[in-house]
């Protein structure tokens, strides 16, 4: 896709537009865009694990939630008057702050938790499963069970997690008042910056030796083993990285949306995240970012016009894309460019034949 000289530099105007977006769109649209860029960070993680690693995970919502809840717990605590507990705890008759809430009074701990908690959890889980060579459909189903269990747990432990309603009602972040135009712009730029960093980092990683081995593992795991590599660490690292990206995306999303709840972490949202990447293209970082934006803007438009229709559209799009466009829009774009190039070089071939 980057062969064409015009396309090789297409990222420059796209990035320039993205940086200038706060001056170009309404604050409502900017908020939406910020949310969807946060989701794009998660989508890049799915490219790593699913596109490059060939491992389908149906549990990214768990890590999205871990990031979201980590930051939300800090926000909840920092907006309290001293000596008070979060509102939902008081309604449930909880007398003192649960021990696992206490460290989240520190902003530094909350930020570290956004990265370290999902990395540790995903690393341990993936190591346990991959070590025993459980893969493919089995892995997908187990991750789905993790998503269901996590969502059920969050919903049922009402008194310490906020239950079905989740955590909301945030006022300040690191001393900055949330909800103002200035805060929204800052958050947007932070999100964009992190997205660019994650994008560039992933691109570098996939071009490295690690990326080559990960792809080799996807295409012929036993062959890689016969060459003397232990494939488990490669897969564990890919899964943990995708979990960290999901968590960062979840934390940023929570800041933009002002709420985190079990509705973002369960089975259905976790598969929706796969839909973004399936639509955009599972083997393309560009595709994943575009897919996250396109699917989410489409969802926003369709579900506000005809709420009933969205699930039909989503289901149908998913069936069609998976069946007929396995490499998504990025794959389609690649094919089109290739056809043009072939056509452009076709006369040369004809001349060559004539000459012979």
């Amino acid at each position, binding site marked *: 896709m980057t062969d064409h000289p015009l396309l090789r530099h297409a990222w420059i105007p796209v990035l320039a537009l993205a940086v200038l977006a706060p001056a170009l769109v309404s604050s409502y649209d900017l908020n939406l865009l910020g949310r969807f860029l946060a989701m794009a960070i998660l989508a890049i993680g799915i490219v790593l694990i699913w596109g490059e690693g060939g491992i*389908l995970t149906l549990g990214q919502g768990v890590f999205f939630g871990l990031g979201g809840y980590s930051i939300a717990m800090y926000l909840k605590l920092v907006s309290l008057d001293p000596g008070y507990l979060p509102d939902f705890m008081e309604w449930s008759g909880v007398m003192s702050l649960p021990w696992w809430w206490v460290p989240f009074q520190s902003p530094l701990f909350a930020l570290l938790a956004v990265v370290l908690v999902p990395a540790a959890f995903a690393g341990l*889980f993936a190591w*346990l*499963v991959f*070590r*025993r*060579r*459980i893969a*493919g*459909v*089995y892995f*997908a*189903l*187990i991750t*789905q*069970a*993790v998503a*269901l*269990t996590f969502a*059920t*747990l969050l*919903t*049922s*432990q009402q008194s310490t997690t906020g239950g079905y309603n989740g955590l909301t009602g945030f006022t300040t972040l690191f001393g900055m008042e949330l909800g103002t135009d200035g805060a929204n712009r800052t958050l947007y730029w932070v999100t964009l910056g992190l997205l660019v960093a994650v994008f560039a980092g992933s691109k570098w990683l996939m071009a490295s030796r690690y990326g080559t081995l990960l792809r080799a593992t996807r295409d012929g795991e*036993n062959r890689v083993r016969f060459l003397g590599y232990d494939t488990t660490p490669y897969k564990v690292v890919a899964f943990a990285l995708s979990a960290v990206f999901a968590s960062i995306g979840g934390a940023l999303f929570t800041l933009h949306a002002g709420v985190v709840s079990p509705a973002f972490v369960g*089975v259905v949202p976790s*598969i929706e995240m*796969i839909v973004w990447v*399936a639509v955009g293209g599972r083997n393309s970082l560009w595709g994943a970012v575009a897919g996250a934006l396109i699917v989410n803007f489409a969802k926003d438009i369709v579900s506000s016009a005809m709420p*009933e229709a969205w*699930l*039909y559209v*989503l*289901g*149908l*799009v*998913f*069936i069609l894309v*998976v*069946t007929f466009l*396995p490499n998504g829009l990025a794959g389609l774009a690649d094919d089109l460019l290739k056809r043009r190039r072939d056509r452009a070089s076709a006369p040369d071939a004809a001349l060559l034949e004539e000459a012979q």
Partner: protein
Amino acid sequence: MLDATLFAGQVFNGFSLASLFVLAALGLALSFGLMRVINMAHGEMLMLGGYLAYLTYLIVPGPAAILVAMPVAFLGAAVVGGLMEVTVIRRLSSRPLDTLLATWGVSLILQQAARSVFGPIGVGVTAPDWLNTGFALGSLYFPSTRIFILAVAVAVLAGLGLLIARTRLGLLVRAVNQDRMMAAASGINTRRVDLAVFCLGTGIAGLAGVVLSLLGPVTPSVGQSYIVPAFLVVVMGGLGSMVGTTAAAIILGLVSALSQIFLDVSMSQVLMLLFVIIFLQFRPQGVVATRSRALEG
């Protein structure tokens, strides 16, 4: 003494839960063993069975309604399953993970269709009087519905076992299961066998839906609440083995019911998942392993 009663009661509940898991998972395991695909819309076949039971009750009320509803639901779900196999699954047969995703799309559409037709709130199916009883044994009470469900599960297992072991279709299924290429080479129409098994599997799910409708309202998402445990049963059972699926269902049913003596439902769900992951540490190939020298199966 009280503890022993509680324990015995939970063991019964465990088997009762296991019978639901078996009914929900058998169809999945069958087609997974044969075609290596997981049908994410399998839960919606349960839902379809439930709604077909509801419709049957409207048309033929009376004590025998449930006996009419069972074949109706079986056939209805089998036909829908057959349509799915021909339109979606067959196209993707070489890409099992993509099949899983495409069937999830089907599942979303079916759920939303149920919501449009029957409304988001569940419809109730009243159990016939002859199931509204139960009998007491000491201080334990066994509701008839639960015993009926156990009986259905046992009957389905026995029927399926006979079908696989004794009939011509069963012979073909076993042949394709053992070696698809060889079976095809000796003239078996493997595609037709796939289709038959897939229909049979979704039919059993339809039957399971009728049974579920005895326990609670039929809602558009009723299938979702049983399908994830059913997936775990398939993962734990080992490649599509009937014995493995049954054993895994019983183990998980008991783990879930017994852990609920001292844990709440959500924590017991966590425990069940941990149990599966730990179990797979020791037996990654599942309860019943298929012995094979193939490197990649």
